[in-house]
């Protein structure tokens, strides 16, 4: 139920069995079925979700009802509307499950309490947020300055396992292309080989 969570935690910050037990009390185990929402736009995001099993995505919906995928969450990753979580403003993202999933949720109140009482959790949080910041900067740079083809190849290189698991139109959405453009690029790349 928490195996992967603590495996990843220990990679970032090694903890003792007692500390693990202490942290465990603050965690919320939660199962989500495919297509169910973890969060809908307009609600305040009250948790950070760690994916033990399954796959989720975070996306916004524009005025043409097009879904724009912001982030995927696969095993070992965290997913959330961090902006909403930290500011307590209504979320602008929706988060739903692409597959039946098992999550470990950290609620805002549990998060605050652990930051106060468990120094290693604070370190863990710092490393997580640093990682999220780096990923975001990289993503912005790619979107601003890369060609469509570069964006796709970047994605495949960085996340080969996602490419195998989610439908092409979602990958297109994530890298900011129409499904048609992505399909053309894929054809071009495979014929070029």
């Amino acid at each position, binding site marked *: 139920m928490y195996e992967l969570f603590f495996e990843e935690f220990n990679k970032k910050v090694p903890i003792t069995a007692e500390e693990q037990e202490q942290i465990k009390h603050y*965690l919320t*185990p939660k199962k989500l*079925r495919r297509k169910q929402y973890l969060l*809908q736009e307009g609600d305040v995001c009250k948790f950070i979700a760690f994916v033990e099993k399954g796959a989720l995505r975070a996306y916004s919906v524009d005025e043409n009802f097009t879904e724009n995928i912001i982030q995927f969450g696969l095993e070992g990753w965290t997913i959330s509307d961090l902006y909403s979580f930290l500011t307590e403003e209504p979320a602008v993202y929706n988060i739903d499950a692409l597959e039946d999933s098992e999550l470990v949720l950290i609620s805002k109140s549990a998060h605050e309490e652990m930051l106060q009482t468990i120094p290693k959790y604070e370190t863990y949080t710092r490393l997580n947020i640093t990682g999220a910041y780096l990923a975001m900067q990289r993503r912005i740079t790619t979107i601003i300055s890369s060609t469509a083809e570069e964006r796709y190849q970047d994605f495949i290189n960085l996340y080969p396992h996602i490419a195998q698991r989610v439908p092409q139109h979602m990958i297109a959405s994530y890298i900011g292309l129409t499904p048609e453009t992505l399909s053309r690029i894929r054809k071009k790349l495979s014929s070029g080989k």
Partner: protein
Amino acid sequence: MITKQTITIVGASGSMGTAISSSLSRGNYRLLLCGSELAEVQKVVDAVKYSIAAAEVEALDCTLDACWEADIIVLAVPFAEMQEVADRIREVVNQKVVISLANPLDDATDTPATGVVAELQKLLPYTKAVRVSANPFTDAKPKEVIIAGDDEEALETVSELVSTAGFRPVVADAGAPDTASEPEV
């Protein structure tokens, strides 16, 4: 709240369980119903769907799985059964709101000295324990329902739930008697 919350009701085919299931099915909730006999629970599901076709309600055989999926858990079982249920669901209800409808007086045996909330909290230490009971001292309409517990956020969540069910929520003062001496309605 816009995001649909999942509520698991344990003991859904009992008289309280049936009533709660049908009144909550009006709200923006997904209901998972459990009980000792799946066929009995399925009857409740069918009845709820018969009156509200759009209701998202389902009978589940495995109480553990149902509570693992849940955001909120309602224990509609007698006070004396709380321990048995708690033992079965303990590992999947951490940090969740757990509501007891138990009225120990009614159930006669083993009345606790400390009250239902304290008892539930002792059984499930890392949950947000809340007790919901009808206020026997008023005939007000809609009916008043007393909500007792220690966690502010949980009390808010349960108040919303009680309003959805068509009752008037009244949050008990912290430290007010939540004891077995409360008369039954």
